[in-house]
């Protein structure tokens, strides 16, 4: 009879949850990226003015920090298709993705910064928008880095002629 109380206590303990229970079902719904849900007509989401300001051109002077940042972002988001040097020969292209145009052709060398920023923001043709992953200030950094790629390429091409 005296054993019953400890037995009951043991049974109660056995019902306890462990901290290492598997939790797969809770996975990643909180990590879904959605920046493109439509907002109601006539309203503006928080930070709209700040985003618009960041989209405005920071001027044509590229600081070394800006170029470094642009290079890093370019290698993450653009080089899989456009290649590290911008010739449109990324690894994904070698697996069958339609090759993007080289940055070093006449038309793109003459294109303004705004064009590159708008391609990142809105996409073009087969290229999807990167607005959900490249914030506005980074788009300018990338645009400046693309321009510096074009300049080095033009210089080496000029030297070898």
């Amino acid at each position, binding site marked *: 009879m005296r054993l019953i109380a400890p037995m009951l206590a043991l049974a109660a303990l056995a019902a306890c949850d462990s*901290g*290492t229970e*598997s*939790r*797969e*079902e*809770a*996975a*990643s*719904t*909180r*990590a*879904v*990226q*959605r920046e*493109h849900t439509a907002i109601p007509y006539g309203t503006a989401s928080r930070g709209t003015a700040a985003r618009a300001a960041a989209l405005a051109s920071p001027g044509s002077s590229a600081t070394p*920090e800006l170029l*470094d*940042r642009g290079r*890093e972002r370019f*290698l*993450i*988001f653009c080089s*899989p298709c456009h290649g590290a040097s911008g010739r449109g020969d990324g*690894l*994904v292209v070698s*697996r*069958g*993705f*339609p090759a993007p145009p080289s940055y070093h052709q006449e038309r793109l060398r003459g294109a303004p910064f705004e064009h590159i920023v708008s391609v990142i923001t809105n996409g073009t043709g*087969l*290229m*999807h928008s*990167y607005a*959900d*992953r490249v914030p506005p200030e980074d788009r300018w950094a990338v645009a400046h880095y693309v321009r510096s790629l074009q300049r080095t390429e033009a210089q080496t091409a000029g030297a070898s002629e």
Partner: protein
Amino acid sequence: MAQLFSRRATTIFRVVLTLTPLAAAAGGGLTYAWLRSDAAWGVGKPAPQPIPFRHDLHAGVLKIDCRYCHTGAERAADAGMPSAQTCMTCHSQIWAGASVLEPLRTALALDTPLRWRSVSRLPDFAYFHHGAHVSKGVTCATCHGRVEEMPKTVKARTLSMGWCLECHRDPGSRLPLHTAVLATAEKKQPSGQAPRAHDTSLLMSCSTCHR
């Protein structure tokens, strides 16, 4: 009245008396060892995924940067999972009609999230922040192993409290400060200034991770 216990009963009783505590101790020891083993924490066990995604192909062979898909890892608490749109930047052209990618097209059409299964989710009472670690130069591989070589994503470390504290006790010796994964993390520090000494008492206080 006949004797209730035979002579042998004494020996048996003695043997049982010595073996019982031994068995209990062994059982306790085994449980202790099991709870600390990798298997109890699910290390090396893949979770069933809606799409047979392969890191060894995307991050290994194609060399796509982790941050292309896990965008939050540098600044946010959550590293973040890629949305269907992110996969579609390539798979609108490559393997476009493949049946393995059907969940992707469904998610896109219905505007629902892709429900990936996590192998590394912590319990709700523990708090973790990716940005705080990645920006200090802790590499992904320190905690997740060599993901770019995994055909199926598995947990590589226990991610138990003891494991976290092992590093928090003395992060300085474990941090590859000079080979920081992200060059910018170092550059942000004003030049000439020694890297900030880590406040170990803060890193070890319960409320840092249980808040």
